[in-house]
């Protein structure tokens, strides 16, 4: 099966290509790039004139909710949402039910993903058994089954000794350690930034320091253990400075920022808007500014969605009872494109943040690039078209987005995984 994509503006940050050229796919791999390729060479031809053709996006942080919470999302609906958002690979977190802390669950997820998934699914295993922070999960067995990293995402590993052992052990299997950095003794039950808004609403807030203390600790432990560390959904200026300083002295640490954390501030929580309730919380204007500067100065290695689907009844409750998080796969690209519009990054730099960057963090050789021989995971998008976010049209099973009604730019036209079109606008 051969697929030809013609006349698109091909942008591949990995090979620093940017120009109008054709691209031929064969057997799920990229076979040929360059100039004009004759239509006769392919069974299927896509005319991408006026559109951008780039490596498919890779989300380092998705919650697919299966097994256990299929009413929120399934591997099928989650990957459909991913495809609609231009993502060709998603890394799914371990806080399912049961928790992905052993190879049986890992195998289940991978089998389901193979049968029903629209895009590549790469599972993350838990660091601690049951995400309880007490003892190590079956990290080695999960590594054999196919996890790409370990994380207790959803909560932090509060016990530093256990985190150290987790890092040492994961390192032995070449696994990435993904840190949800939060000192829970400081954040308590809070899912709102400590500041004026929290004060007015009469809600306890979580200070920047709750994140920064754990970022500092995990960097220290990464230096101690030599583990590869990734700080996910980072939100503060202080965290960015810690990661940047550590990288400068050669520590293997990377970070990602979620679109909502650079698109909204804690002002969005006013009126007890539970759609804007998340952990880490939406931060202050100054932090948002610092994150944007971080993109501009090339200090952030990836954008990740923290796609966290929840049913409406879990949000239509008192603020302190509402679940944390928002669906992000279908708005991530348009929200991120804002960084280009604001001239903080170039379009190729943005594509890097969404594809090549995450591929590098995960150590994927065949993804996040359009070079010959790479996996034909491709997204075709129109950066100029305007779109209106409408949660009722989401492919995700859940609709918990604070961006409903927003008009943005950037429309995904086609998403291709292993040479097959899995989404068409």
């Amino acid at each position, binding site marked *: 099966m051969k697929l030809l994509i013609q006349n698109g503006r091909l942008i591949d940050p990995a090979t620093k290509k940017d120009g109008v050229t054709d691209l031929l796919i064969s057997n799920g791999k990229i076979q040929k790039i360059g100039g004009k390729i004759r239509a006769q060479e392919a069974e299927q031809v896509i005319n991408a004139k006026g559109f951008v053709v780039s490596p498919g996006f890779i989300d380092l942080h998705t919650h697919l909710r299966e097994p256990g919470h299929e009413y929120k999302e399934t591997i099928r609906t989650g990957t459909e949402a991913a495809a609609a958002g231009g993502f060709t690979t998603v890394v799914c977190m371990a806080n399912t039910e049961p928790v992905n802390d052993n190879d049986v669950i890992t195998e289940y997820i991978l089998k389901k993903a193979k049968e029903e998934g629209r895009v590549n699914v790469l599972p993350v295993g838990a660091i601690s058994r049951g995400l309880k922070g007490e003892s190590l999960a079956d990290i080695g067995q999960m590594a054999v089954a196919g996890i790409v990293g370990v994380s207790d995402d959803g909560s932090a590993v509060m016990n530093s000794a256990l985190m150290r052992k987790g890092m040492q052990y994961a390192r032995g299997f070449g696994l990435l350690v993904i840190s949800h950095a939060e000192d829970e003794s400081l954040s308590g039950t809070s899912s709102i930034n*400590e*500041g*004026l*808004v*929290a*004060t*007015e*609403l*009469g*809600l*306890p*807030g979580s200070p920047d320091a709750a994140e920064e203390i754990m970022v500092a600790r995990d960097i220290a432990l990464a230096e101690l253990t030599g583990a590869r560390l990734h700080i996910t959904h980072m939100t503060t200026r202080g965290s960015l400075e810690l990661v940047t300083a550590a990288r400068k002295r050669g520590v293997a640490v990377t970070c990602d920022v979620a679109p909502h954390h650079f698109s909204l501030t804690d002002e969005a929580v006013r*009126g*007890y808007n539970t759609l804007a309730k998340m952990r880490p919380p939406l931060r202050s204007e100054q932090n948002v500014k610092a994150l944007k500067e971080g993109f501009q100065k090339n200090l952030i290695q990836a954008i990740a969605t923290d796609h966290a689907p929840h049913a409406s*009844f879990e949000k*239509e*409750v*008192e*603020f*302190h*009872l509402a679940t944390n998080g928002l669906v992000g796969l279908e708005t991530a690209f*348009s*929200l991120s*494109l*804002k960084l280009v*519009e*604001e001239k903080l990054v170039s379009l190729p730099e943005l594509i890097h943040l969404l594809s090549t960057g995450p591929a590098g963090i995960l150590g994927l050789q065949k993804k996040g690039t359009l070079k010959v021989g790479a996996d034909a995971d491709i997204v075709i998008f129109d950066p100029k078209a*305007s779109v*209106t976010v*409408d949660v009722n049209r989401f492919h995700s099973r859940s609709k918990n987005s604070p961006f*409903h*009604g*927003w*008009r*943005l*730019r950037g429309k995904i036209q086609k998403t291709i995984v292993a040479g097959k079109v899995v989404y068409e606008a």
Partner: protein
Amino acid sequence: MILKKDKSLKQKTPPQRGFFLPQKDLLGLKTLTREQILHILDRAKVFKESLKTGKKGDDLKGKRVINLFFEPSTRTRTSFEIAEKNLSAEILNIAPSASSLTKGESLKDMIENLGAMHPDLLVVRHAASGASPLIASYTQASVINGGDGSHEHPTQGLVDLFTVQENLGRIAGVNLLIVGDIAYSRVARSNIYGFTKMGAKVTVIGPATLLPPGLEKLGVKVSTQFHKHIPGADVIMLLRIQKERQQTLNFPSLAEYTRFFGLTRDLLPLIKKGTLIMHPGPINRGVEIDPEIADSKSADGPQTVILEQVANGVAVRMAVLSLWGNKK
């Protein structure tokens, strides 16, 4: 990139009703205008006069009021209930136990079910910040916030404004100290909004651990030095320390709290004559305030108006209920 909000997709806005009160609900003093507050206080004054003659009104005749108290509060509930009876309302008291809501029924379900009774007014008391606005969004009835978590307690704020107005003849320019647990106090928030809006100079005082960030932006001075501000104060409002809620993290002991933030007898010489001493109750005697000061009626010292606050509560709540119960 955000070109503009698409209007067609905007979620439903609450219906705008009435001329004097555009808001469907009374959720807090933050959203009331100066004029609206004055209007309520004026009406409360009329009700207070009529109460002296023992006359009852029929402002709420034929109106259905549900008192929905998720959190027990004898004072506030009784005050509302008397006010409602004085206005001839049909009253239904519901005190849902916390457990009924854990059986899979949400607050939304409960409010939608109560809607079948077609109440005109819902008086709500709840331990969660934001519960009253949430309830208001699920009912056509006007919601009167009887205190929600650490958010607002607007009728208490109005009672305090009324009491100051009545005793000092003005609110504008008055030096008000709010002392104690600012972080967890809904009374503090409502009073900050109410008094600053009416032109008072407000200073909030408490242990640094109970002063949340951003208070200055609400137009108040913030201090940890109670004694320094006493000589200039026209009103000293002491807040209740929730002994149950104060983990040892916020201050070392009640004795230490009292030493620095209690209105103790040795502070009496600092207080100027005629200064009003207020407390929303119930008082922890010997913690926030010396028992003798709390009960003092002496004319040559500070004026304790704590019982007046309670008495004014009925008139102020009658004003609120009659206004919100009779919007078109």
